Structures are given as structure tokens and as C-alpha cells.
């Protein structure tokens, strides 16, 4: 049954992680895989910047550049940013609401492995004849014309990892609705939980259109259908709509959890409750809602006509209002507070002006008639890196520093953390600020080189230098992590001293059953409330009893592996005789393991209360 001994060999640890259904371990898996893909996407970004450092450069070839560019965007969005945020959701959200686990531990593991195999499949394209090269948006006319199997890797890889994301989303939704501790009403949920909730809803409704359109692209490329083949009556604009019906909510899927992380960091280090909690919640929901009605702002130049453009322009602008509410609420949380400048707080504070700049250029882009100028230029590149790096990446880096103790029981070094911060911060602005101007001076995006004499030389060089600073910052972060793991200095429940929410009330790292007794929640910031009343911890809401836990299982891994195998079959079906059999074998593996899962009862196991009592301050349990 359970394998929770303290010291284990590598093989056993590996097996443990391959079969785990524990949300905290799955979180670590998400961090490892997401972190790896972040570095990969970052290296791709460096290649982009080196190529563009000087005019007429030939560091990479034109075709290869397009592959790098596509993989940078795709990797960063689907394989780095989202999984890293999923890591936080898994690691923190259940603790914040006082849950023992997520609603579907098995599905949680399945979600991770699907993402992992999807991402792996996508990246294998580098070694198997070339990566996708039609941009992360993969607009249909170009992606149908693209030769080789690059786009097929894109289609199949994203399909597989997309299923994983969808499952993760549903899982979080149910967890939040059904598994809250006694007293944890909706309006007492920490903001990170709220943003997880809204982001998960966005996933639920945004991924199906992507699924459908990716299916259609796959059918067109591999099975001879004609959705996007204009000669046979098809229409490529369909793809664009689907992509953005998904794609715009997607950017809020990224930014909302980031908002959530900052909403946790700022109150802790300002020692003040979140200003305007209910309007923060309301703004989050409103952003999610409006996020579905603005997608065509990516398509102003497609020729949808002035009516559609005007409607979508105005709708887009509306999003500035709830976002502004959030910005001001954060500022006024710190206002009147007692602000301590830790590394996480550095990121949180730097986020405000940085994201603001990206946000206001977003509103400028929403001016449809002016977007005819901005669209597909470096102005847009500047906009979205400002919101994504200044918002999401800062949140990931700040959140990592902030929650590291809760996840691993040690503290990342603060000095090194601040060095990372300042390098990253400076590099970020240096890289992307100047790009606004490049765009306005007429430099299109997605160009593998630029010709001399157009006034782009100096600015591009500056941009490249900034990017290198970000790389150095990342290296410092990696060093910091290595040092911290080596040193292994253990810390207590509430290492920052001012933790407010439930996760800080339990040991670091949390025991695998999270809460020995479910806590009784008496208000917003429950742990803070207890501390202010002089108590040491939470009041339990239930007597000590047996704890029901799910069994670990290798099936999620096998199920995902089956799809991974069949993807090769689908792709090579027309090229090689072995394609079809492989396709079938893969599906048999997947559906077979699905069947096995549903036929074999899995009732989990119980930790007996006797085993709990005597290990008051230890992590493990004798199983």
C-alpha cells in the first residue's frame, strides 16, 4: 500500500514519484517539469535575441528561426507558465482551504503525466525532422502549407497536454467547491484559491475550442479533411477564431493565478489584510467573465469589418476597470502597512509598475483603428512580455521564494534571491521597453532578421543585452536552489513570521495527510485570527480520527504513455507501415489501463488514529 519510509534509494524515490497521487508531490513534479521547460524556452529566447542582436545576422537560418520562435512561444505558454502555476495550485490551494487532498488524486496524477508526455512529444520534434514553424498561433494557411511533421508534433503534443490541463482544471474546481474545511465559506477563501477557481473555470471553457480546432488541423493535415482548405470550401478564419476564443482566456488563465500569488504575498509582508477583499474577488470573476468576449481584438486586421472591430475594441477596454480595481487594492493593502522588503515582496512590488505598463499598452492595442499599426509588430511583443514576464514570471519567481519553505521545509537564500531579482528586473525592462519603439518604427514581429539602415540596430542590441541579464539571473536562481538543497536547514510552520492563511498553520513541509484534524475556520485569514488571539495554532473542527487516503497508482503514467505512443502512430501512419499498428497499440494501452482502473476497485487506505497521535511533530507516519 503506502510507501512512506523516510530513507529510500533512488529507485524507490523514482517509483514513488511515478505512482504518486499526493498533490504536494505532484506539485513538485510540475515544478521540475515546468522549470525544465522554462529554461528550455528561455534558451530559445536567448537564441532569438542573439540572432536579432545585429542586422543580417546568420546565427541561425531563417527556417530554423521560425522553429525556435514557435517553440519559444508554445513552450513558455503551455509547458512552462501554466504548469508552474499548476504547481502552485497543487502545492498551496488544498492547504489554503484546509483539505486533505484534491478531489480526484488519481486524475491529478493523470493530468500531470498527460502534460508531461504531451510536452515531451512536442519537443521530440527537434530530433525527428524539425519543430513546428508556424508561430504559436499556427494560423491555418501557413500551418497547412508547412512541410515535414513539425506542425503534427504541435497538434498532437498540445492535444495530449491539453487533456491534462482540462482535467487539472476540473479537479481544482471540485476541490474548491467540495473540500473546504468547516467554516471556510466562499468569502473567506484566500485570493489565490479564488483565482485558482476562476482560472480553472476559464480552462474548462477555453480548452474545448482549442481541442476542436487542433483536431480539425490534425484531420486536415493527416486525414485529408478540408476544414481550412479554401479550394474545397474550407475557411482559415475559423482557425483564427477558435485559436483566440481559446487564446485570450488563456492569457487570463496565466495572469489570474499570478494575481492570486501577489495577493498572498503583499498582505503577509505589509502585515495588513488585503484591502477590499470582496471587490478583489468580484474583479477576479469579472475579468474571467469579460475574458470570453474580447478574443477578436487579436484579429482587428483580419477584416472582420468595423462593427465587429468596434464591439470588440470597447469590450476589451472594459477589462481595464476590474484590473485597475486590483492594482489599487494592492497598493492600498501596502498603504498604512508595515512593509518589509523580503525577496518575495520585491517581486510583488516590482510587479505593480511593470504589469501596469503592460496593461496600459494592452488598452492602447484595444484601440482598434490604432491597432492596425501596432498589430504584428514589436509593440505587441513588448506588450505581452510586459504582462507575462512582469506579471506571470515575477509571480512564479516571487511565489517560489515565498512558498519554497512550505514545499520543502527550507529557505531559499535571501541575498541570492535579491540578486536574482535585480538582475531579472533590470534585464526585463532593458529587453522589452525599447521594443515598444521598434514596433512603432515599423519593425514587424516574427522576422528572423532585419536589414541594416532602418534604424533598428542599436535598439535590438540593447534588447539582447537585457535578455542576457535575465539569463544570468536565472542561473543565480539555479545556484540558489542547489545551495539551499545542499544545506538543508529546516524551518518551522510559519517561517516568514506573518503567515495569515491556513497553509502556514501546519508543519513545513506539510505531512502527507496535510491536516491531522481539519481546522475550524473563523474568518478571512484564519491563521492570523488565531495568532492575534494569542493561540499557537488552529482550533480543530473534528475529533482525531482515522484518515482516509488514496492509493498510489502507476496507471496514470501508463495511460498517458499510451497516448504518447499512439501519437507517433497517427503521425507516421502514412509514411511507414508500422504507423497504424503503433497507433492501435497506443490506444489499447490507454483504453486498457482505463478499463483496468474502472474494473478494479480502489478504496484507498486509512491511517489509523493511533499512528497519528504519537508523531505530533514528525512528518511521516508508520504505515
Amino acid at each position, binding site marked *: 500500500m503506502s510507501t512512506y519510509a523516510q530513507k529510500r534509494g533512488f529507485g524507490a524515490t523514482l517509483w514513488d514519484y511515478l505512482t504518486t497521487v499526493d498533490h504536494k508531490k505532484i506539485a513538485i513534479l510540475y515544478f521540475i517539469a515546468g522549470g525544465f521547460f522554462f529554461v528550455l524556452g528561455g534558451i530559445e529566447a536567448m537564441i532569438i535575441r542573439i540572432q536579432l542582436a545585429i542586422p*543580417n545576422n546568420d546565427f541561425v*537560418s*531563417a527556417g530554423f528561426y*521560425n522553429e525556435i520562435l514557435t517553440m519559444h512561444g508554445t513552450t513558455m505558454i503551455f509547458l512552462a507558465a501554466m504548469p508552474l502555476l499548476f504547481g502552485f495550485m497543487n502545492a498551496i490551494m488544498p492547504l489554503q482551504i484546509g483539505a486533505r487532498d484534491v478531489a480526484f488524486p488519481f486524475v491529478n496524477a493523470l493530468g500531470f503525466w498527460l502534460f508531461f508526455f504531451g510536452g515531451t512529444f512536442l519537443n521530440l520534434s527537434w530530433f525527428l525532422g524539425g519543430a513546428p514553424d508556424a508561430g504559436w498561433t499556427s494560423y491555418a*494557411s*501557413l500551418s497547412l502549407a508547412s512541410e515535414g511533421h513539425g506542425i503534427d508534433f504541435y497538434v498532437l503534443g498540445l492535444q495530449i497536454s491539453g487533456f491534462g490541463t482540462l482535467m487539472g482544471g476540473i479537479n481544482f474546481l471540485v476541490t474548491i467547491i467540495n473540500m473546504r474545511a468547516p467554516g471556510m465559506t466562499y468569502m473567506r477563501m484566500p485570493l489565490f484559491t479564488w483565482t485558482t477557481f476562476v482560472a480553472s473555470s476559464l480552462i474548462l471553457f477555453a480548452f474545448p475550442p482549442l481541442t476542436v480546432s487542433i483536431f480539425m488541423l490534425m484531420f486536415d493535415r493527416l486525414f485529408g479533411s478540408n476544414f481550412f482548405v479554401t479550394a474545397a470550401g474550407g475557411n*482559415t*478564419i475559423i482557425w483564427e477564431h477558435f485559436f483566440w476564443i481559446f487564446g485570450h482566456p488563456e492569457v487570463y488563465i496565466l495572469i489570474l493565478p499570478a494575481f492570486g500569488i501577489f495577493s498572498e504575498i503583499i498582505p503577509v509582508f*505589509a502585515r*495588513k*489584510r488585503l*484591502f*477590499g*477583499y*470582496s471587490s478583489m474577488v468580484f474583479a477576479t470573476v469579472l475579468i474571467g467573465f469579460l475574458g470570453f468576449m474580447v478574443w477578436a481584438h487579436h484579429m482587428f*486586421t*483580419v*477584416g472582420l*469589418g468595423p462593427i465587429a472591430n*468596434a464591439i470588440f*475594441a*470597447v469590450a476589451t*477596454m472594459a477589462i481595464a*476597470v476590474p484590473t*485597475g*480595481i486590483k492594482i*489599487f*487594492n494592492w*497598493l*492600498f493593502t*501596502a*498603504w*498604512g*502597512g*508595515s*512593509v518589509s522588503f523580503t525577496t518575495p515582496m520585491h517581486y510583488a*512590488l516590482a510587479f505593480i509598475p511593470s504589469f501596469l505598463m503592460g496593461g*496600459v499598452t494592452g*488598452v*492602447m492595442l484595444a*484601440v482598434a*483603428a*490604432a491597432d*492596425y499599426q501596432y*498589430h*504584428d*509588430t514589436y509593440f505587441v511583443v513588448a506588450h505581452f512580455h510586459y504582462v507575462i514576464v512582469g506579471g506571470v514570471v515575477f509571480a512564479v519567481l516571487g511565489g517560489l521564494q515565498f512558498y519554497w519553505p512550505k514545499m520543502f521545509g527550507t529557505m531559499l537564500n535571501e541575498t541570492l534571491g535579491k540578486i536574482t531579482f535585480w538582475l531579472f528586473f533590470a534585464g526585463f525592462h532593458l529587453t522589452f521597453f525599447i521594443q515598444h*519603439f521598434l514596433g*512603432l*518604427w*515599423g519593425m*514587424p514581429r*516574427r*522576422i*528572423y*532578421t532585419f*536589414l541594416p539602415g532602418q*534604424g533598428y540596430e*542599436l535598439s535590438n542590441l540593447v534588447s539582447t543585452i537585457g535578455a542576457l541579464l535575465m539569463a544570468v539571473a536565472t542561473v543565480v536562481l539555479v545556484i540558489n536552489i542547489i545551495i539551499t538543497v545542499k544545506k538543508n536547514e529546516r524551518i518551522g510552520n510559519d517561517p516568514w513570521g506573518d503567515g495569515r492563511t491556513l497553509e502556514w498553520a501546519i508543519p513545513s513541509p506539510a505531512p502527507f495527510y496535510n491536516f491531522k484534524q481539519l481546522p475550524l475556520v473563523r474568518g478571512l485569514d484564519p491563521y492570523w485570527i488565531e495568532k*492575534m488571539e494569542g493561540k499557537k495554532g488552529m482550533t480543530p473542527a473534528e475529533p482525531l480520527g482515522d484518515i482516509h487516503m488514496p492509493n498510489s497508482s502507476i496507471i496514470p503514467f501508463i495511460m498517458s504513455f499510451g497516448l504518447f505512443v499512439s501519437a507517433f502512430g497517427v503521425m507516421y501512419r502514412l509514411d511507414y507501415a508500422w504507423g497504424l499498428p503503433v497507433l492501435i497499440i497506443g490506444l489499447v494501452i490507454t483504453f486498457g489501463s482505463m478499463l483496468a482502473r474502472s474494473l478494479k476497485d480502489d478504496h484507498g487506505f486509512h491511517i489509523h488514529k493511533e499512528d497519528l497521535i504519537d508523531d505530533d511533530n514528525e512528518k511521516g507516519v508508520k504505515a
Partner: protein
Amino acid sequence: MAMKWLSKWRLLSLFTMLAFVLSGCGLPHLSTLQPAGEVAQTQYDLMVLSTAIMVGVIVVVTVIFLIVLFRFRRKDDKIPKQVEGSHKLEIIWTVIPILLLLVLAVPTVKATFDLADVEAMDQKNEEGKTDALVVNVRANLYWWEFEYPNEEIVTSQELVVPTDEKVYFNLKASDVKHSFWIPAVGGKMDTNTDNVNKFWLEFDSAAADEAGELFYGKCAELCGPSHALMDFKVKTLPRDEFDQWVADMQDVKEPAVAQTPKAQQGQEIFNNSCIGCHAVTPANTTPEAARMAPNLTNFGERDYVAGLITMENNEENIKEWLRDPEKYKPANKMTGTYGELSEDELDALAEYLLGLKVQE
């Protein structure tokens, strides 16, 4: 000696470029910040308006931010008052942004409709033609074709337009999606594979003067390896000179006969290897599908080879292009379609091509 001159020239251009960076407006023939026509002007005005609003927002947030940064540093271990929120403040920062956005939204909607007004294209006179000047733009993998349906002529790579009047465009793509953009003159519009898009531009004569009568145009939609190099140029002429140009073009009914023996040799090679794709007559009677390459009728009058600003149109560059187009535009559709050419043949072709002119 030549090297030295070159490096000096480079230094000079670096300085001028620096000057532009400092002035922040970019180059007059390329930058959206130096509007050279009504459309670009409208858009520029919107940019200025929105930037002003945004700077206002940034200033307000920055002031609050700085106060937070300096006034509320932790000094002691006291627990600050736990404030729940403030309705008054909430209302302020909900209502003010709404007002600001309204100020922005109204001109946005107006401009969006104005720029989409192409009614003049539908008003046909008794000949079934429009009184307004119409250009059909067809985007192809890495080259542009400009057809003047009323005038019944075709040209490529360099769009020729009259100044100070509205020019209307029909836009489409023949292979994959591209996007037609002349930054200094107005925003872009996609050339789709599914439909024909319409819009208009206006080229201001004074601004054209400053830009040297030649604007840079670009493809703004990823379309393959040479997307970066899918540039075109726009030549602006006063209306009467434009009419003259049209008349000169229309005069070419048959391929012009080369004058010098060398050029005649070139023409022969051309007729053997190239004419299958490249036309040297401007008539728009060949069906589009058969117009597989840039029309070269007035090639000798173009400023650049294949639209590349690094390839000024001279003998050396033409030969360079013909030797290996792949080197200049990766994955272009001409590479490898016409066999090896000897140096001699290259000379001949270059001379022939340079002689393809319609105006004196």
C-alpha cells in the same frame, strides 16, 4: 581605400540612426510616428490620445506606489491597523477609469468606421469602372503584385501611387496568409486566402517629399522563412506624373526589344528560361494563376532587386540574385527553377533586365 570609405559611411549612418533614436520618431519613410497620410495621421492621433491617458494613469499609480515604497517601510514591530476597505475609494477607482475609457472609446469607434469606409469602390461609372483609383494587391510567397484593374496594367514589388488622393485597395493572398503594411502611410490589413479585404490609404505629398518619394512596405504576417524579407516599396507621384506613368505602361503592348547585342542575348535567355513565370508586358489579361512571378515590365526603373534594401538595383546585384536567390530570400519560389547560368549569361541577363524601362 574602399573599405575605409565604407566604414566611414557606416559610422555616419550609425550617427544618423542614433539621432533618430534620440528624436524617437524613426525614419520618415518607415515609421508610424511620422504619419504620411490621412490614415496614418488618424492613427497617430489615436496613439497620442491613448498615450496621454496611459501616462496619466501611470503617473497616478506611480505616485501612490512611491509613497508606499518610502513611507510605509517597516520601522518597528507594531501590527498595523487591519483595514477592510473603503467604499469611497473603490468607487473613485472604478468610475474614473470608466470615464477615461469612454474618452478613448468614442474616437476609437469613429476612426474604426472611417477607416473602413470604402463605398467609393462600389460606385461604378457607365464603363463598369470606378472613378476612384483602385489597386488589387495580391500577396505571394515573398513577392507582391499590384494590379490596376481600371487601367488594366500589372506591376510588382514597387507600388506606384498618386499623392493627395484616396487610393483604394483590394487585398488577397494567393498561397498563404500575408499582411499588407506601409507603416508611414497607414495601418496594415491582412491578405487572406479566403476573401478579398478592402481598405484605403492616402499618400501625403509633403510627407512624401520628406521621405524621398519612396515608402517602405512590409509583410506583417508570418508566412514562412522569408517573411522577414517580404518587403516592397511605394513610389509616390503627383497625379499628372502618375497618369503619365500609367500611359507609358499601357504603351507596352509587346515585350520591348533589347537594344544592345549583349541585352539581346539576355533577352533570348530570358525567353527560354524565365518568361514562363515572369511577364515583361504589363497587361492584366493573363489569368492570376499563370502570373507566377513578379512582372518585370518596368524592372529597370525599380530601386531594389526583389524589394530588398540591401540589393540596390544594379548589374552586380542582379547577377548576385540570379546566381543564388536562396542566399537572399530563403525558400523563395524561384530558386532552382532555371538551371545553372554562366557568368556570361548572367552579364547578358543583367543588361537586358536593367534595360526594361517604360519611361525615359
